[in-house]
């Protein structure tokens, strides 16, 4: 992970234009988002034959994955199999050594760091195992933060953030700081923050890993419902079958290779 905020914390980057990409932060919750320039029937996001090593340790060794619009895909596999590295490459956080990542018909690996950062902020959302909310801000301010970084005025950003807290059934925690809410509530706030900018893809890395069964299921139910209603694709890294059961299909990563991708497509 390159930093705490995968959408890029440098505000000056919000003005970097990406040809064919929508201006981030212009979408209302629940409304159709800006259209990414990809063929309607083709994959929205694709990783093709990715290879990546960290030092002499290979993490990916020919991983391939395609994600369609609005599809929830679970990436499964044992610890150390390369599933998180695959997610980070797909999200443009980590550059693969070879292979392609194509989003909306554009090769992500060829974009500059600034453009990839702007793309992450405008088109992608992120949910991690431990929420990674900013402890000094209230939950409402946390959800509003990516909108504020995208240049949306405070009042409008907070109005949209409040709508998303409602949809994730955590209205009551808006004025509290992350340290004052439960793990399950914090994760639902993190999901609201990921969805508030109207992204096309959400990357979720073990989003229920720190929660008990009941809270984990509630997060997944609300998360996948909100994603489906908004037409957002979700790449969900999990080792828990009951979490993967909320997906449309699964892809298994083992020893850096995707095994089931060819079988299910």
């Amino acid at each position, binding site marked *: 992970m390159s930093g705490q905020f995968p959408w890029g914390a440098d505000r000056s980057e919000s003005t970097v234009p990406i040809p064919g990409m929508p201006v981030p932060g212009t979408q209302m919750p629940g409304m159709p988002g800006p259209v990414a320039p990809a063929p309607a029937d083709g994959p929205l996001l694709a990783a093709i034959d990715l290879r990546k090593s960290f030092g002499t340790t290979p993490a990916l060794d020919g991983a391939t994955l395609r994600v369609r619009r609005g599809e929830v895909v679970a990436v499964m596999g*044992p610890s150390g199999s390369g599933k998180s590295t695959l997610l980070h490459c797909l999200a443009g956080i980590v550059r693969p050594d070879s292979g392609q990542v194509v989003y909306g018909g554009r090769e992500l690996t060829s974009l500059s760091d600034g453009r990839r950062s702007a793309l992450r902020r405008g088109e992608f959302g992120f949910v991690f195992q431990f929420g990674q909310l900013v402890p000094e801000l209230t939950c409402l301010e946390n959800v509003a933060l990516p909108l504020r970084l995208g240049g949306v005025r405070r009042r409008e950003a907070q109005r949209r953030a409040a709508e998303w807290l409602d949809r994730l059934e955590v209205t009551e925690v808006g004025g509290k700081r992350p340290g004052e809410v439960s793990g399950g509530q914090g994760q639902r706030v993190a999901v609201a923050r990921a969805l508030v900018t109207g992204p096309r893809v959400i990357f979720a890395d073990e989003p229920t890993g720190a929660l008990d069964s009941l809270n984990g299921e509630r997060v997944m*139910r609300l998360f996948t419902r909100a994603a489906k209603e908004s037409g957002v694709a979700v790449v969900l890294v999990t080792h*828990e*079958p*009951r979490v*993967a*059961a*909320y*997906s449309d299909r*699964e892809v*298994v990563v*083992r020893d850096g290779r995707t*095994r*089931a991708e060819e*079988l*299910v497509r």
Partner: protein
Amino acid sequence: MSIGQVFLGLLESRPSHGYDLKRSYDERFGQDRPLHFGQVYATLSRLLKHGLIEVEGVEPGGGPERKRYAITDAGVTDVQRWLGQPERPDLYLQNTLYAKVVLALLTGRPAAEILDTQRTEHLRLMRELTQRKLDGDLAVALICDHALFHLEADLRWLELTSARLDQLASAVNS
């Protein structure tokens, strides 16, 4: 678990007499329920009748003649079909899955694919149950949860077995 298909898998790895087949079966898959000789010869007779095995040779001995059985091409096709087809997720499924994995290793087939195919089938059922749970009331949710936890246990077993395939291959082929 189908004794006939396990016999076919064992015979594909090498031709055997009825007695040796029973011994292999009991050692590998019988646990505390060894086969009766009646079951062994009834099964072999059925496989012969369907053309899945043939008598390769007859050896005279001190007692009754010993027939050596070999698998036919039709038998190999039957094993291939059985191994490639996922099992219906069920309680105590492990006996059958374990037999399939061992026979795949014995006959040089990719055992990991059997586990992957089964994982896909398990997750398909888990998706169905999850959807039923989301659409139903609390009673439905609790019943579905019970099944989901059992299926999850199966999947853990599949994952562990996947991780131990190399070790199992050495043990099976030693």
